[in-house]
Structure formats: structure tokens, C-alpha cells
């Protein structure tokens, strides 16, 4: 097999570097990967703990321990996200801030409106609906801010 001509290799390296630069700095990629691992561990342990506690007769300290495992993973994800924020560049930090502000604000407004809406005869909603809304608006806020500074 013939080796790439130097020009082709340089083009490929340049193309790869351009692609990498679209996802931020090397530190950003590492920190995003770390956050993703923690978030996936959180989701997996949450589903596992939920299934285990519903389908098995586990009670007492063991049940509390199982229920707390996802919380530990969530703390890890939060730590990874904060580290990402600390080490990323200032524009990415601003984009993240706009996303978090929109998500947090939407969650608070939704939770505060919930009581009044229920009193007005609206269908009963719970905290998980607010969490889902916060996640969606957080993602939307990031996408919108990314588009604004594109």
C-alpha cells in the first residue's frame, strides 16, 4: 500500500484540525467527554436503581444506599460540568450561561405557575415535568446562543 503524498497528508491533518476546532479546544473536548461519561453513569444508575427498587423487595439502609447511587453520579456530572465551565474559553462560558439562565428561569416559572394552574383545574403535573422542561430549555438556550455568536 502506497503512503499518502505529503500534500494529501497535510490536507487531511488540516481538515482534521478544522473539524476538531469546531468542537472547542482540546481541554473542552476532554471535559465534555468527562461530563458525558458521568451523565451516562447517572442515567444508567438512575434507571437501574428505579427498576431494582420497584421490582425487588429491598428495604431499609440497602434501599437508601441504592437510591443514593444515582445522586453520587449526578454530583460527579455536576463537578465535571463546573470543571468544563472553569476551563473553557470565555465565549463558550457565555453561551453556557445563557443556556443555564434560560433553563433555570423556565424551570422556576413553570414550578411557580404549577400551583396556580392546578388550582385553575389544569392537569396535575409533577417535578419531573419541570426537570424535563429545564433540560429542553437549557439545550435550546445553548443552541440559540451558539447561533447568535456563530
Amino acid at each position, binding site marked *: 500500500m502506497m503512503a499518502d503524498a505529503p500534500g494529501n497528508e497535510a490536507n487531511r491533518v*488540516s481538515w482534521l*484540525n*478544522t473539524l*476538531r*476546532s*469546531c468542537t*472547542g*479546544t482540546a481541554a*473542552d473536548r476532554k471535559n465534555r467527554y468527562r461530563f458525558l461519561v458521568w451523565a451516562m453513569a447517572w442515567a444508567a444508575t438512575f434507571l437501574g436503581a428505579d427498576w431494582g427498587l420497584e421490582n425487588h423487595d429491598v428495604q431499609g439502609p440497602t434501599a437508601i444506599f441504592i437510591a443514593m447511587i444515582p445522586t453520587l453520579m449526578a454530583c460527579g456530572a455536576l463537578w465535571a460540568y463546573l470543571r468544563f465551565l472553569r476551563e*473553557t*474559553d*470565555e*465565549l*463558550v462560558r*457565555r453561551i453556557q450561561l445563557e443556556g443555564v439562565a434560560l433553563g433555570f428561569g423556565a424551570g422556576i416559572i413553570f414550578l411557580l405557575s404549577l400551583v396556580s394552574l392546578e388550582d385553575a383545574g389544569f392537569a396535575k403535573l409533577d417535578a419531573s415535568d419541570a426537570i424535563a422542561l429545564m433540560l429542553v430549555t437549557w439545550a435550546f438556550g445553548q443552541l440559540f446562543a*451558539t447561533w*447568535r*455568536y*456563530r
Partner: protein
Amino acid sequence: MKNRLRILRAERDWTQATLARELEVSRQTVNAIETGKYDPALPLAFKIARLFNQTIEEVFDPGAEET
């Protein structure tokens, strides 16, 4: 705020990705500064000026708005 970043980069025949690597920021940040959508904070502005051996005033013009 208007700036000469795109010109200074072009003089060195650098891509946005190359400049982003030199400044240790994302390519999106370089693009946003060049297009005037984002004004960098002082530490990054100093870094940019030093990289091109210029003063901050020679790179950034606070009196002009990017169109």
C-alpha cells in the same frame, strides 16, 4: 467594537483554527471576534495583541462599531 483581527490573521496566512490554537480558544470564539459579534475580555484581548506584537488599541477600535 471594530477590530483588525481578520486582517492580522490574513497577513500571516493563518486559518481561524490555527489562530484559535495559538490563543487556546475555540474557533467559534475567533470567528465571533472577527465578525464583531463578541468583544473579548481584557486577558484575551492582551493575548491577541501580544501574539501579533501590537498594542490593544492597534487591534481593537472602541470608537467604531462593527457593521
